[in-house]
């Protein structure tokens, strides 16, 4: 089927307004929250599950790839149409279909914004636990695709721990549920296979999520340090003391500068690191735990420890923390964020290594991380326009990921593999591991139709990411 014919049938399915082909329309879909760009040919925005199924069938007949996209906030290039085809934007499927507080369940469409779920139930004393920093913009569908985490992952786990079931459109256009509204359905946990599959197995069209009761008390403190080492050691000591905080977040001096320049919340600009500690639970427990955390901060060398006096102050701290990535623009035109993981006890060592990498490659690196679970986000700051800089950035990124693996960690905590890290996945998995995963993929998507060129290393790219000369940034991942 020719492209014109495909466009015609897509228009019949979703309506003229929701099929984009003009350059001044589709160009804005060439990039997500990452730095990768590939110009799309067609963007289709279905309005319901039947339309999604019909779009999948149309792409099937035309034999073109389908690239699902939510809010486009992903940081690994997962929604970039690497091999062309149709971008299937799910933003119009944005209804909350059901809220069942008695059974702590909501059923939502994939385009629903993460924070909107919590907003819809907050007045009843409930919340949806996974809280990526982009939660004011990212979609639940995108969270499912990337098995997203967030600051509160430490206490509540990642997205897969909060998804009971998903309705999916398979490669032949059939619609089915995997899992359901009750926990522990028998048989293979195909729901679990879909969560984190980065859009490579099919299109998620409904999600049954678990809702949680808000805790009686939440206490939050901000500890200010003159040395990064002291902040990371404090994290090790807090967990060693048997406190399991809801969140343990560190931001370094450069990140503080970005936040304070972009949308200030009042972090001290002369500190080397700030640590946010949040504890929750029954009032007595939260009170005791925060007191203990405070003592440990002071013992480990915090120059000041401030308890958030009220909810407004707590919200301000989190606004600063959650805006940190977006604030990088206040320091540099581009940033390349890594998503490494190291065992918590290796944090002090890892931070020293990052400082060394920053010096060696002569690049500013802003660190903001989920310290509690050793999930690092070094943001390498650069300017795409200055020649040669991007190459150094790629090399510095590779060096940080290698350091993570050397220290016994992993190359992604929560952002997914996407385009960005597929060259490195071989560092983590053996050929046999990858083949096992590829078999699962083939079982669902034998034609390699869904989000091709993601997640798995392409033959040309086992090893190093290479740049095409004079061409940025689409060639970055080849």
């Amino acid at each position, binding site marked *: 089927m020719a492209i014109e014919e495909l466009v015609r049938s897509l228009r019949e399915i979703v309506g003229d307004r929701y099929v984009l082909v003009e350059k001044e329309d589709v160009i804005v879909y060439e990039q997500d929250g990452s730095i990768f760009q590939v110009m799309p040919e067609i963007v289709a925005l279905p309005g319901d599950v039947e339309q999604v199924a019909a779009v999948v069938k149309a792409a099937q007949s035309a034999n073109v790839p389908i690239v699902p996209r939510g*809010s*486009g906030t992903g940081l690994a290039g997962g929604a970039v149409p690497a091999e062309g085809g149709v971008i299937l934007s799910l933003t119009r499927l944005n209804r909350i279909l059901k809220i069942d507080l008695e059974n702590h369940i909501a059923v939502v469409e994939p385009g629903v914004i993460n924070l909107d779920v919590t907003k819809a139930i907050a007045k009843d004393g409930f919340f949806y636990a996974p809280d990526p920093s982009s939660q004011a*913009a990212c979609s639940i569908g995108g969270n499912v695709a990337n098995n997203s985490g967030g600051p509160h992952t430490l206490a509540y786990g990642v997205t897969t721990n909060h998804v009971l079931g998903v309705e999916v459109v398979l490669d032949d256009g059939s619609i089915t549920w995997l899992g359901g509204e009750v926990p522990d359905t028998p048989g293979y946990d195909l729901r679990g296979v879909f969560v984190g599959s980065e859009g490579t197995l099919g299109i998620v069209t409904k999600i049954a999520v678990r809702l949680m009761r808000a805790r009686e008390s939440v206490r939050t403190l901000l500890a200010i340090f003159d040395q990064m080492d002291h902040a990371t050691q404090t994290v090790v000591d807090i967990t060693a003391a048997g406190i399991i905080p809801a969140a343990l977040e560190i931001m370094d001096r450069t990140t503080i500068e970005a936040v304070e320049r972009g949308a200030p919340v009042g972090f001290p600009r002369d500190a080397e690191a700030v640590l946010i500690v949040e504890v929750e639970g029954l009032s007595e427990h939260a009170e005791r735990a925060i007191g203990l955390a405070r003592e440990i901060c002071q013992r480990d060398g915090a120059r000041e420890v401030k308890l958030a006096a009220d909810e407004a102050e707590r919200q301000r701290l989190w606004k600063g923390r959650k*805006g940190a*990535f*977006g604030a*990088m623009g206040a320091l540099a035109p581009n*940033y390349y964020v890594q998503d490494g993981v190291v065992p918590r006890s290796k944090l002090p060592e890892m931070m020293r290594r990052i400082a060394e990498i920053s010096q060696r490659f002569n690049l500013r690196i802003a660190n903001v991380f989920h310290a509690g679970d050793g999930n690092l986000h070094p943001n390498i700051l650069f300017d795409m326009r200055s020649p040669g800089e991007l190459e150094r950035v790629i090399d510095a990124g590779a060096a940080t990921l290698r350091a993570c693996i050397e220290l016994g960690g992993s190359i992604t905590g929560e952002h997914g593999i996407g385009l960005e890290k597929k060259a490195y996945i071989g560092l983590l998995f053996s050929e046999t591991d990858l083949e096992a995963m590829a078999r699962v993929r083939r079982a669902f998507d034998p034609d390699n139709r869904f989000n091709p060129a993601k997640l798995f290393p392409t033959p040309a790219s086992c090893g190093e990411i290479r740049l*095409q000369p004079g061409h940025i940034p*689409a060639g970055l991942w080849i």
Partner: protein
Amino acid sequence: MQADKTQEHATPQGIAALDLPELYQCVHCGLCLNQCPTYRALQLEPESPRGRIHLVKAAAEGRIELNERFAEHLYLCLLCRACESACPSGVQYGHIAEAAREQLGPPGSELGRAVLNFVFTQMLPYRNRLRFAFALLRLYQRSGLQRIARLFLPKKLAEMEQLLPAIPSRFFKPHAGIAPAIGARRARIAMLDGCVMPLLFGSVNNATVRVLQRNGCDVIFPSQQSCCGALNVHNGETTAAKQMARRNIDAFLDADVEAVIVNAAGCGATMKEYGHLLRDDPDYRDKAERFSARVKDAGEFLADLGLVGELHPVEMTVTYQDPCHLVHGQRIRNQPRKLLQAIPGLKLVEMEGADRCCGSAGIYNLTHSGMSQHLLKEKMQSIAATGSEAIVAPNPGCMLQLRSGASRFGPDLKVYHLMDLLDRAYRQAD
């Protein structure tokens, strides 16, 4: 597969005037998306702040042309600047959109553009012409001509005619000398008269002067002042806008005052950014910065000064609509609420999304009535849910829009300026 993509990036001939520093502050995080009224309504990336920034960047790089499609995306934007409040990097989206519109010129069909150009360059800068035009409109409304015309106007024109507000019987006439402070003098200020304010909301201007007087302010109206130029700047006309800015700078900077008070949010936001508008004018750049530093919204100024004098109870339940160019453009969120809460007997009930645009947006309600009405309808629903008796919105555009919303969609509420209610509380104390 890569070869064609390489060519994609290789098109030269960018537009240097659009290669703005603000573009490189956006890191594509997307936190603006869900705050954008048009993105919320359509769920289309080209109708989002991030999408529009991407388009302008692509045009600056010469990857796309400034064609009709591009113009549609840039002009569907309300310029509400809610994205600026949401942006963690502090990207000044308004500057980007205004620069793009400057390249495009005013929106609409050829005829529409000609009409707008005429209004921007031949009407707004001249207060007498505006006054005359509004007097004619008033005659049209009161002579019975309106009733006859409505029978014959073509549909599109008839719809626009419906939006024409009732012109009050009296226009505002600024005080010739000083309106003196009542009680101990605390400040000497100059006030912007405005272009539409004195013609449609003369009573608000009068109320503002009285409230300022009661708070110990000597109020003057420099006679050489002009319209602020906001409508021009927002719609791609900058030549006349810069002239108006220079005229205001001259008129107000020489008046020996502590502050320049503005009671229209859109005007205040523009006047606070004269420094940016005149950044390439060596004679006025510094003066503009000094001038802008003195500009204060009436509510902002009074909240900072602190109210004095006895306020009589105003028994009323109201909800507050944040004018976009107050809350996002000037970051003034708490001060007006603080003033409302200072009025005894008055109960303030917050609506859902108070800081979301009502769809007025200058002349947007005329150029994009479909989107404008969609947003207004949603707004009226949020207002209805508060159970309020009245809406407070300290900006003329919002007031007109909400009045038409109240009569069109209900609930049938009164719409006040913040200064109306403060004035009422003071006057009843007499």
